[in-house]
Protein backbone atom coordinates (compact mmCIF):
# COMPACT_ATOMS: atom_id res chain seq x y z
CA UNK A 1 0.00 0.00 0.00
CA UNK A 2 1.54 3.32 -1.00
CA UNK A 3 2.64 5.63 1.80
CA UNK A 4 0.33 8.37 0.48
CA UNK A 5 -2.73 6.16 0.86
CA UNK A 6 -1.77 5.22 4.42
CA UNK A 7 -1.27 8.91 5.16
CA UNK A 8 -4.69 9.77 3.68
CA UNK A 9 -6.48 7.06 5.67
CA UNK A 10 -4.73 8.02 8.89
CA UNK A 11 -5.67 11.65 8.34
CA UNK A 12 -9.27 10.71 7.61
CA UNK A 13 -9.36 8.56 10.78
CA UNK A 14 -8.00 11.40 12.94
CA UNK A 15 -10.42 13.90 11.37
CA UNK A 16 -13.41 11.64 12.04
CA UNK A 17 -12.23 10.94 15.57
CA UNK A 18 -12.05 14.70 16.12
CA UNK A 19 -15.53 15.24 14.67
CA UNK A 20 -17.05 12.46 16.80
CA UNK A 21 -15.37 13.88 19.93
CA UNK A 22 -16.66 17.33 19.04
CA UNK A 23 -20.19 15.96 18.63
CA UNK A 24 -19.91 14.26 22.02
CA UNK A 25 -18.81 17.53 23.65
CA UNK A 26 -21.57 19.46 21.86
CA UNK A 27 -24.16 16.93 23.04
CA UNK A 28 -22.98 17.27 26.64
CA UNK A 29 -22.72 21.08 26.30
CA UNK A 30 -26.21 21.25 24.77
CA UNK A 31 -27.78 21.14 28.26
CA UNK A 32 -26.44 24.64 28.92
CA UNK A 33 -28.40 26.04 25.97
CA UNK A 34 -31.56 24.00 25.62
CA UNK A 35 -33.51 21.75 27.94
CA UNK A 36 -33.99 18.37 26.23
CA UNK A 37 -37.48 17.69 24.94
CA UNK A 38 -39.21 15.09 27.14
CA UNK A 39 -41.49 14.11 24.27
CA UNK A 40 -38.57 13.33 21.96
CA UNK A 41 -36.66 11.59 24.75
CA UNK A 42 -39.60 9.32 25.64
CA UNK A 43 -40.21 8.54 21.96
CA UNK A 44 -36.57 7.48 21.55
CA UNK A 45 -36.66 5.56 24.83
CA UNK A 46 -39.63 3.61 23.55
CA UNK A 47 -37.97 2.98 20.19
CA UNK A 48 -34.58 2.02 21.65
CA UNK A 49 -35.53 0.52 24.99
CA UNK A 50 -38.87 -1.19 24.50
CA UNK A 51 -38.54 -2.28 20.87
CA UNK A 52 -35.03 -3.73 21.33
CA UNK A 53 -36.07 -6.17 24.03
CA UNK A 54 -36.75 -9.15 21.80
CA UNK A 55 -33.30 -8.79 20.22
CA UNK A 56 -31.33 -8.53 23.46
CA UNK A 57 -33.39 -11.22 25.23
CA UNK A 58 -32.79 -13.67 22.37
CA UNK A 59 -29.08 -12.78 22.31
CA UNK A 60 -28.76 -13.17 26.08
CA UNK A 61 -30.61 -16.48 26.15
CA UNK A 62 -28.65 -17.98 23.25
CA UNK A 63 -25.30 -16.83 24.63
CA UNK A 64 -26.07 -18.08 28.15
CA UNK A 65 -27.12 -21.51 26.91
CA UNK A 66 -24.14 -21.96 24.59
CA UNK A 67 -21.66 -20.70 27.18
CA UNK A 68 -23.12 -23.10 29.74
CA UNK A 69 -22.88 -26.08 27.40
CA UNK A 70 -19.31 -25.26 26.26
CA UNK A 71 -18.07 -24.60 29.79
CA UNK A 72 -19.70 -27.76 31.12
CA UNK A 73 -18.14 -29.89 28.37
CA UNK A 74 -14.65 -28.67 29.33
CA UNK A 75 -15.14 -28.61 33.10
CA UNK A 76 -16.73 -32.06 33.12
CA UNK A 77 -13.35 -33.51 32.07
CA UNK A 78 -11.79 -32.27 35.31
CA UNK A 79 -14.86 -32.93 37.48
CA UNK A 80 -15.69 -29.26 37.98
CA UNK A 81 -19.24 -29.41 36.65
CA UNK A 82 -20.71 -27.24 39.39
CA UNK A 83 -18.33 -24.35 38.64
CA UNK A 84 -20.13 -23.86 35.31
CA UNK A 85 -22.64 -21.42 36.85
CA UNK A 86 -19.86 -19.18 38.19
CA UNK A 87 -18.11 -18.96 34.81
CA UNK A 88 -21.34 -18.22 32.97
CA UNK A 89 -22.39 -15.62 35.54
CA UNK A 90 -19.08 -13.73 35.54
CA UNK A 91 -18.66 -14.04 31.77
CA UNK A 92 -22.16 -12.82 31.06
CA UNK A 93 -22.12 -10.00 33.63
CA UNK A 94 -18.79 -8.42 32.80
CA UNK A 95 -18.02 -9.34 29.17
CA UNK A 96 -20.45 -11.15 26.93
CA UNK A 97 -23.63 -9.48 28.18
CA UNK A 98 -22.55 -5.85 27.61
CA UNK A 99 -20.56 -6.51 24.43
CA UNK A 100 -23.13 -8.66 22.64
CA UNK A 101 -26.06 -6.45 23.71
CA UNK A 102 -24.12 -3.41 22.44
CA UNK A 103 -23.36 -5.10 19.10
CA UNK A 104 -27.03 -6.03 18.69
CA UNK A 105 -28.07 -2.46 19.56
CA UNK A 106 -25.57 -1.15 17.01
CA UNK A 107 -27.23 -3.24 14.32
CA UNK A 108 -30.80 -2.46 15.30
CA UNK A 109 -30.70 1.05 16.74
CA UNK A 110 -27.46 2.57 15.42
CA UNK A 111 -28.20 1.64 11.81
CA UNK A 112 -31.72 3.02 12.10
CA UNK A 113 -30.49 6.31 13.60
CA UNK A 114 -27.92 6.82 10.85
CA UNK A 115 -30.41 6.00 8.12
CA UNK A 116 -33.03 8.36 9.60
CA UNK A 117 -30.65 11.29 10.12
CA UNK A 118 -28.91 10.59 6.79
CA UNK A 119 -32.22 10.71 4.95
CA UNK A 120 -33.07 13.97 6.73
CA UNK A 121 -29.69 15.34 5.65
CA UNK A 122 -30.01 14.47 1.96
CA UNK A 123 -33.60 15.73 1.78
CA UNK A 124 -32.56 19.08 3.34
CA UNK A 125 -34.65 18.46 6.49
CA UNK A 126 -31.57 19.15 8.65
CA UNK A 127 -31.02 22.46 6.81
CA UNK A 128 -34.72 23.23 7.30
CA UNK A 129 -34.27 22.61 11.01
CA UNK A 130 -31.34 25.03 11.06
CA UNK A 131 -33.34 27.72 9.26
CA UNK A 132 -36.02 27.32 11.94
CA UNK A 133 -33.38 28.35 14.50
CA UNK A 134 -33.14 24.83 15.95
CA UNK A 135 -29.71 23.31 16.55
CA UNK A 136 -29.56 19.76 15.11
CA UNK A 137 -27.58 18.56 18.13
CA UNK A 138 -30.20 19.83 20.60
CA UNK A 139 -33.12 18.58 18.55
CA UNK A 140 -31.91 15.32 17.04
CA UNK A 141 -28.78 14.09 18.80
CA UNK A 142 -29.46 14.79 22.49
CA UNK A 143 -32.77 12.84 22.79
CA UNK A 144 -31.15 9.83 21.08
CA UNK A 145 -27.98 10.15 23.15
CA UNK A 146 -29.90 10.30 26.46
CA UNK A 147 -32.23 7.48 25.47
CA UNK A 148 -29.28 5.22 24.65
CA UNK A 149 -27.46 6.14 27.87
CA UNK A 150 -30.59 5.22 29.83
CA UNK A 151 -31.62 2.10 27.95
CA UNK A 152 -28.27 0.41 27.16
CA UNK A 153 -27.51 -0.54 30.82
CA UNK A 154 -31.10 -1.69 31.39
CA UNK A 155 -31.15 -3.78 28.24
CA UNK A 156 -27.76 -5.24 29.14
CA UNK A 157 -28.97 -6.13 32.64
CA UNK A 158 -32.00 -7.79 31.09
CA UNK A 159 -29.82 -9.70 28.64
CA UNK A 160 -27.48 -10.86 31.43
CA UNK A 161 -30.32 -12.02 33.68
CA UNK A 162 -31.97 -13.92 30.83
CA UNK A 163 -28.59 -15.45 29.89
CA UNK A 164 -27.93 -16.65 33.44
CA UNK A 165 -31.43 -18.07 33.88
CA UNK A 166 -31.16 -19.84 30.50
CA UNK A 167 -27.77 -21.28 31.41
CA UNK A 168 -29.17 -22.52 34.73
CA UNK A 169 -32.05 -24.21 32.91
CA UNK A 170 -29.70 -25.88 30.41
CA UNK A 171 -27.21 -26.84 33.12
CA UNK A 172 -29.79 -28.33 35.48
CA UNK A 173 -32.31 -29.84 33.07
CA UNK A 174 -30.17 -30.90 30.11
CA UNK A 175 -26.66 -31.39 31.49
CA UNK A 176 -27.55 -32.79 34.92
CA UNK A 177 -25.76 -30.26 37.14
CA UNK A 178 -27.13 -30.06 40.67
CA UNK A 179 -29.20 -26.89 40.96
CA UNK A 180 -28.11 -26.03 44.52
CA UNK A 181 -24.38 -26.33 43.73
CA UNK A 182 -24.87 -24.40 40.49
CA UNK A 183 -26.49 -21.47 42.30
CA UNK A 184 -24.18 -21.52 45.33
CA UNK A 185 -21.02 -21.43 43.20
CA UNK A 186 -22.50 -18.79 40.97
CA UNK A 187 -23.29 -16.42 43.86
CA UNK A 188 -20.03 -17.22 45.69
CA UNK A 189 -17.74 -16.27 42.81
CA UNK A 190 -19.73 -13.47 41.21
CA UNK A 191 -18.88 -10.23 42.96
CA UNK A 192 -20.70 -6.88 42.74
CA UNK A 193 -17.74 -5.39 40.75
CA UNK A 194 -18.42 -7.96 37.98
CA UNK A 195 -21.96 -6.69 37.62
CA UNK A 196 -20.86 -3.07 37.97
CA UNK A 197 -18.19 -3.58 35.29
CA UNK A 198 -20.84 -4.76 32.84
CA UNK A 199 -23.16 -1.85 33.60
CA UNK A 200 -20.38 0.77 33.25
CA UNK A 201 -19.33 -0.80 29.96
CA UNK A 202 -22.88 -0.78 28.63
CA UNK A 203 -23.21 2.90 29.55
CA UNK A 204 -20.03 3.73 27.58
CA UNK A 205 -21.11 1.51 24.66
CA UNK A 206 -24.48 3.30 24.58
CA UNK A 207 -22.66 6.63 24.22
CA UNK A 208 -20.45 5.23 21.44
CA UNK A 209 -23.44 3.91 19.46
CA UNK A 210 -25.32 7.21 19.79
CA UNK A 211 -22.45 9.51 18.89
CA UNK A 212 -21.03 7.44 16.02
CA UNK A 213 -24.46 6.77 14.48
CA UNK A 214 -25.60 10.40 14.76
CA UNK A 215 -22.28 11.68 13.39
CA UNK A 216 -22.47 9.40 10.35
CA UNK A 217 -26.08 10.45 9.73
CA UNK A 218 -25.43 14.17 10.08
CA UNK A 219 -22.38 14.07 7.79
CA UNK A 220 -24.00 11.84 5.18
CA UNK A 221 -23.61 13.03 1.58
CA UNK A 222 -25.26 12.17 -1.72
CA UNK A 223 -28.59 10.46 -2.17
CA UNK A 224 -29.78 6.96 -1.37
CA UNK A 225 -26.29 5.55 -2.00
CA UNK A 226 -24.81 8.01 0.51
CA UNK A 227 -27.35 6.99 3.15
CA UNK A 228 -26.56 3.31 2.58
CA UNK A 229 -22.83 3.94 2.79
CA UNK A 230 -23.17 6.04 5.96
CA UNK A 231 -25.33 3.35 7.59
CA UNK A 232 -22.81 0.61 6.82
CA UNK A 233 -19.94 2.78 8.07
CA UNK A 234 -21.83 3.59 11.28
CA UNK A 235 -22.37 -0.10 12.08
CA UNK A 236 -18.76 -1.02 11.26
CA UNK A 237 -17.16 1.91 13.12
CA UNK A 238 -19.40 1.58 16.19
CA UNK A 239 -18.89 -2.22 16.38
CA UNK A 240 -15.10 -1.99 16.08
CA UNK A 241 -15.00 0.89 18.56
CA UNK A 242 -17.02 -1.16 21.05
CA UNK A 243 -14.63 -4.11 20.76
CA UNK A 244 -11.52 -1.92 21.15
CA UNK A 245 -12.93 0.18 23.99
CA UNK A 246 -14.09 -3.01 25.72
CA UNK A 247 -10.50 -4.24 25.95
CA UNK A 248 -9.27 -1.02 27.56
CA UNK A 249 -12.28 -0.79 29.86
CA UNK A 250 -11.66 -4.35 31.02
CA UNK A 251 -8.05 -3.48 31.91
CA UNK A 252 -9.02 -0.20 33.56
CA UNK A 253 -12.02 -1.46 35.53
CA UNK A 254 -10.31 -4.65 36.71
CA UNK A 255 -7.46 -2.55 38.09
CA UNK A 256 -9.92 -0.12 39.62
CA UNK A 257 -12.02 -2.78 41.36
CA UNK A 258 -9.48 -5.48 42.13
CA UNK A 259 -6.19 -3.73 42.84
Amino acid at each position, binding site marked *: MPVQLIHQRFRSFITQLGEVSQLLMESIGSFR*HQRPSWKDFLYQLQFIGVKSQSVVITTGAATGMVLCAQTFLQFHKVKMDTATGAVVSIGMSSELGPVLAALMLTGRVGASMTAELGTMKVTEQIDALR*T*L*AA*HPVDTLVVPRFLALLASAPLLTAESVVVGIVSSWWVGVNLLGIDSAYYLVNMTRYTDPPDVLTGLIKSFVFGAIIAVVSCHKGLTCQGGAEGVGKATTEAVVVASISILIVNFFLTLFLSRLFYS
Partner: protein
Amino acid sequence: MIEVRDVTKSFGTQQVLRGVSLDIRRGEAVVIIGRSGGGKSILLKHLIGLLQPDSGIVRVDGEDITAMNERSLLRVRRKYGMLFQMAALFDSLTVEENVGFVLRRQGLESETEIRRRIDEALDMVELPGIGHKMPSELSGGMRKRVGLARAIVYRPEIVLYDEPTTGLDPIAADNIDRLIRRVWETLHVTSIAVTHDMKSARTISNRILMLHEGRIYSEGPTSEILESTDPVIYRFVNGISTPQKSQ
Protein backbone atom coordinates in the same frame (compact mmCIF):
# COMPACT_ATOMS: atom_id res chain seq x y z
CA MET B 1 -30.27 44.77 5.29
CA ILE B 2 -28.10 42.09 3.63
CA GLU B 3 -24.65 42.89 2.24
CA VAL B 4 -22.52 40.35 0.43
CA ARG B 5 -18.93 41.25 -0.38
CA ASP B 6 -16.50 39.28 -2.56
CA VAL B 7 -17.84 35.88 -1.53
CA THR B 8 -16.04 32.89 -3.00
CA LYS B 9 -16.94 29.24 -2.56
CA SER B 10 -15.39 26.08 -3.98
CA PHE B 11 -16.31 22.42 -3.68
CA GLY B 12 -13.15 20.42 -4.31
CA THR B 13 -11.61 21.80 -7.47
CA GLN B 14 -14.85 23.39 -8.70
CA GLN B 15 -15.15 27.09 -7.90
CA VAL B 16 -18.86 27.93 -7.77
CA LEU B 17 -18.84 31.52 -6.50
CA ARG B 18 -15.97 33.71 -7.75
CA GLY B 19 -16.40 36.95 -5.83
CA VAL B 20 -20.10 37.68 -5.48
CA SER B 21 -21.08 41.12 -4.15
CA LEU B 22 -24.66 42.33 -3.74
CA ASP B 23 -26.91 44.41 -1.50
CA ILE B 24 -30.51 43.68 -0.58
CA ARG B 25 -32.53 46.41 1.08
CA ARG B 26 -35.35 45.95 3.60
CA GLY B 27 -38.74 45.27 2.02
CA GLU B 28 -37.40 44.44 -1.45
CA ALA B 29 -38.59 41.52 -3.56
CA VAL B 30 -35.44 40.24 -5.23
CA VAL B 31 -34.97 37.33 -7.58
CA ILE B 32 -31.58 35.84 -8.38
CA ILE B 33 -31.60 34.20 -11.80
CA GLY B 34 -28.94 32.13 -13.50
CA ARG B 35 -28.31 28.80 -15.15
CA SER B 36 -28.82 25.48 -13.39
CA GLY B 37 -25.70 24.50 -11.46
CA GLY B 38 -24.52 28.11 -11.54
CA GLY B 39 -24.49 28.49 -7.74
CA LYS B 40 -27.81 30.27 -7.10
CA SER B 41 -28.90 27.93 -4.30
CA ILE B 42 -25.36 27.97 -2.89
CA LEU B 43 -25.50 31.78 -2.78
CA LEU B 44 -28.93 31.67 -1.10
CA LYS B 45 -27.60 29.31 1.58
CA HIS B 46 -24.76 31.76 2.28
CA LEU B 47 -27.32 34.49 3.01
CA ILE B 48 -28.70 32.52 5.97
CA GLY B 49 -25.42 30.97 7.13
CA LEU B 50 -26.23 27.40 6.06
CA LEU B 51 -22.93 27.52 4.16
CA GLN B 52 -19.82 29.49 5.05
CA PRO B 53 -17.81 31.16 2.27
CA ASP B 54 -14.15 30.37 1.61
CA SER B 55 -13.56 34.11 1.62
CA GLY B 56 -15.67 37.26 1.69
CA ILE B 57 -18.26 38.67 4.05
CA VAL B 58 -22.03 38.34 4.49
CA ARG B 59 -23.58 40.98 6.75
CA VAL B 60 -27.17 40.86 8.03
CA ASP B 61 -28.30 44.11 9.67
CA GLY B 62 -24.62 45.02 10.04
CA GLU B 63 -23.58 41.72 11.71
CA ASP B 64 -20.97 39.62 9.93
CA ILE B 65 -22.52 36.14 9.95
CA THR B 66 -19.47 34.48 8.40
CA ALA B 67 -17.62 34.91 11.70
CA MET B 68 -20.39 33.26 13.76
CA ASN B 69 -20.59 29.70 15.05
CA GLU B 70 -23.73 27.59 14.65
CA ARG B 71 -25.20 28.63 18.02
CA SER B 72 -24.74 32.36 17.39
CA LEU B 73 -26.29 31.92 13.96
CA LEU B 74 -29.49 30.57 15.50
CA ARG B 75 -30.24 34.07 16.82
CA VAL B 76 -29.73 35.63 13.36
CA ARG B 77 -31.80 32.92 11.67
CA ARG B 78 -34.87 33.91 13.71
CA LYS B 79 -35.16 36.78 11.24
CA TYR B 80 -35.47 34.32 8.35
CA GLY B 81 -37.97 31.92 6.92
CA MET B 82 -36.98 29.63 4.06
CA LEU B 83 -38.88 27.58 1.52
CA PHE B 84 -36.75 24.76 0.15
CA GLN B 85 -36.78 23.40 -3.38
CA MET B 86 -38.41 20.12 -2.30
CA ALA B 87 -40.17 21.78 0.68
CA ALA B 88 -38.05 19.76 3.20
CA LEU B 89 -41.03 19.06 5.46
CA PHE B 90 -40.23 16.89 8.48
CA ASP B 91 -41.68 13.62 7.27
CA SER B 92 -42.22 12.17 10.75
CA LEU B 93 -44.47 15.10 11.76
CA THR B 94 -47.97 16.02 10.63
CA VAL B 95 -48.63 19.21 8.65
CA GLU B 96 -49.86 20.91 11.83
CA GLU B 97 -46.70 19.87 13.73
CA ASN B 98 -44.50 21.01 10.85
CA VAL B 99 -46.10 24.45 10.69
CA GLY B 100 -46.15 24.87 14.46
CA PHE B 101 -42.61 23.54 14.98
CA VAL B 102 -40.96 26.87 15.80
CA LEU B 103 -43.87 28.19 17.87
CA ARG B 104 -43.96 25.08 20.05
CA ARG B 105 -40.18 24.99 20.35
CA GLN B 106 -40.06 28.59 21.54
CA GLY B 107 -42.88 27.84 23.98
CA LEU B 108 -43.74 31.51 24.32
CA GLU B 109 -47.45 31.21 23.60
CA SER B 110 -50.39 29.15 24.79
CA GLU B 111 -51.41 26.06 22.81
CA THR B 112 -54.65 27.83 21.81
CA GLU B 113 -52.71 30.77 20.38
CA ILE B 114 -50.26 28.42 18.61
CA ARG B 115 -53.18 26.56 16.98
CA ARG B 116 -54.75 29.84 15.93
CA ARG B 117 -51.52 30.95 14.25
CA ILE B 118 -51.08 27.58 12.53
CA ASP B 119 -54.64 27.80 11.16
CA GLU B 120 -53.99 31.39 10.05
CA ALA B 121 -50.81 30.36 8.20
CA LEU B 122 -52.55 27.39 6.54
CA ASP B 123 -55.43 29.68 5.53
CA MET B 124 -52.96 32.11 4.00
CA VAL B 125 -51.52 29.36 1.77
CA GLU B 126 -55.07 28.21 0.96
CA LEU B 127 -54.81 24.85 2.67
CA PRO B 128 -57.27 24.98 5.57
CA GLY B 129 -58.13 21.76 7.40
CA ILE B 130 -55.18 19.60 6.35
CA GLY B 131 -53.28 19.88 9.64
CA HIS B 132 -53.77 16.19 10.48
CA LYS B 133 -52.22 14.94 7.22
CA MET B 134 -48.68 13.58 6.88
CA PRO B 135 -46.34 15.17 4.28
CA SER B 136 -46.32 11.88 2.31
CA GLU B 137 -50.08 12.33 1.68
CA LEU B 138 -49.60 15.70 -0.06
CA SER B 139 -48.91 16.59 -3.69
CA GLY B 140 -45.77 18.54 -4.67
CA GLY B 141 -47.64 21.86 -4.81
CA MET B 142 -49.31 21.26 -1.45
CA ARG B 143 -45.99 20.38 0.14
CA LYS B 144 -44.52 23.66 -1.07
CA ARG B 145 -47.47 25.60 0.28
CA VAL B 146 -47.13 23.87 3.66
CA GLY B 147 -43.39 24.69 3.52
CA LEU B 148 -44.34 28.31 2.91
CA ALA B 149 -46.79 28.27 5.84
CA ARG B 150 -44.00 26.88 8.05
CA ALA B 151 -41.64 29.63 6.86
CA ILE B 152 -44.03 32.51 7.60
CA VAL B 153 -45.95 31.36 10.68
CA TYR B 154 -43.50 33.07 13.06
CA ARG B 155 -43.50 36.31 11.03
CA PRO B 156 -39.87 36.46 9.85
CA GLU B 157 -38.40 39.67 8.40
CA ILE B 158 -36.78 37.92 5.44
CA VAL B 159 -38.17 34.99 3.44
CA LEU B 160 -35.89 32.98 1.16
CA TYR B 161 -37.26 30.82 -1.66
CA ASP B 162 -35.09 28.16 -3.28
CA GLU B 163 -36.51 27.39 -6.75
CA PRO B 164 -40.11 27.75 -5.53
CA THR B 165 -41.79 26.56 -8.74
CA THR B 166 -39.42 23.80 -9.82
CA GLY B 167 -41.20 20.51 -10.42
CA LEU B 168 -44.71 21.99 -10.42
CA ASP B 169 -47.25 22.10 -13.23
CA PRO B 170 -47.94 25.62 -14.64
CA ILE B 171 -51.11 26.11 -12.61
CA ALA B 172 -49.53 25.00 -9.32
CA ALA B 173 -46.49 27.17 -10.14
CA ASP B 174 -48.72 30.18 -10.74
CA ASN B 175 -50.48 29.49 -7.44
CA ILE B 176 -47.14 29.49 -5.59
CA ASP B 177 -46.10 32.72 -7.35
CA ARG B 178 -49.30 34.44 -6.27
CA LEU B 179 -48.79 33.27 -2.68
CA ILE B 180 -45.20 34.55 -2.63
CA ARG B 181 -46.40 37.87 -3.97
CA ARG B 182 -49.19 37.97 -1.37
CA VAL B 183 -46.78 37.15 1.48
CA TRP B 184 -44.51 39.98 0.35
CA GLU B 185 -47.36 42.46 0.09
CA THR B 186 -49.30 41.58 3.23
CA LEU B 187 -46.52 40.67 5.67
CA HIS B 188 -44.08 43.34 4.37
CA VAL B 189 -41.16 40.90 4.37
CA THR B 190 -37.95 41.11 2.40
CA SER B 191 -38.37 38.45 -0.27
CA ILE B 192 -35.36 36.75 -1.90
CA ALA B 193 -35.88 33.96 -4.41
CA VAL B 194 -33.61 32.02 -6.75
CA THR B 195 -35.19 30.67 -9.87
CA HIS B 196 -34.69 30.06 -13.56
CA ASP B 197 -38.42 30.33 -14.20
CA MET B 198 -38.79 33.72 -15.95
CA LYS B 199 -42.57 33.83 -15.57
CA SER B 200 -42.12 33.36 -11.84
CA ALA B 201 -39.36 36.00 -11.70
CA ARG B 202 -41.66 38.51 -13.40
CA THR B 203 -44.46 37.87 -10.90
CA ILE B 204 -42.58 37.77 -7.60
CA SER B 205 -39.81 40.37 -7.95
CA ASN B 206 -39.27 44.07 -8.28
CA ARG B 207 -35.52 43.65 -8.83
CA ILE B 208 -33.50 40.93 -10.55
CA LEU B 209 -29.87 39.95 -10.09
CA MET B 210 -28.27 37.68 -12.65
CA LEU B 211 -25.59 35.25 -11.49
CA HIS B 212 -23.31 34.27 -14.33
CA GLU B 213 -19.99 32.42 -14.16
CA GLY B 214 -19.84 32.78 -10.38
CA ARG B 215 -20.40 36.54 -10.26
CA ILE B 216 -23.31 38.97 -10.32
CA TYR B 217 -23.33 39.75 -14.04
CA SER B 218 -26.13 42.31 -14.00
CA GLU B 219 -28.84 43.72 -11.77
CA GLY B 220 -31.78 46.07 -12.19
CA PRO B 221 -35.55 46.48 -12.05
CA THR B 222 -37.43 43.38 -13.18
CA SER B 223 -38.80 44.85 -16.41
CA GLU B 224 -35.39 46.26 -17.35
CA ILE B 225 -33.60 42.92 -16.96
CA LEU B 226 -36.33 40.92 -18.69
CA GLU B 227 -36.26 43.28 -21.66
CA SER B 228 -32.47 43.64 -21.75
CA THR B 229 -30.70 43.31 -25.10
CA ASP B 230 -27.42 42.26 -23.51
CA PRO B 231 -26.62 38.98 -25.30
CA VAL B 232 -25.99 36.94 -22.12
CA ILE B 233 -29.17 38.15 -20.40
CA TYR B 234 -31.24 37.99 -23.59
CA ARG B 235 -30.24 34.40 -24.29
CA PHE B 236 -31.01 33.33 -20.71
CA VAL B 237 -34.34 35.16 -20.41
CA ASN B 238 -35.55 33.88 -23.78
CA GLY B 239 -34.10 30.39 -23.43
CA ILE B 240 -31.77 30.42 -26.43
CA SER B 241 -29.10 27.74 -26.17
CA THR B 242 -26.71 28.97 -28.91
CA PRO B 243 -25.78 32.50 -29.96
CA GLN B 244 -27.94 33.58 -32.91
CA LYS B 245 -26.04 34.30 -36.09
CA SER B 246 -26.50 37.80 -37.47
CA GLN B 247 -28.51 37.85 -40.70
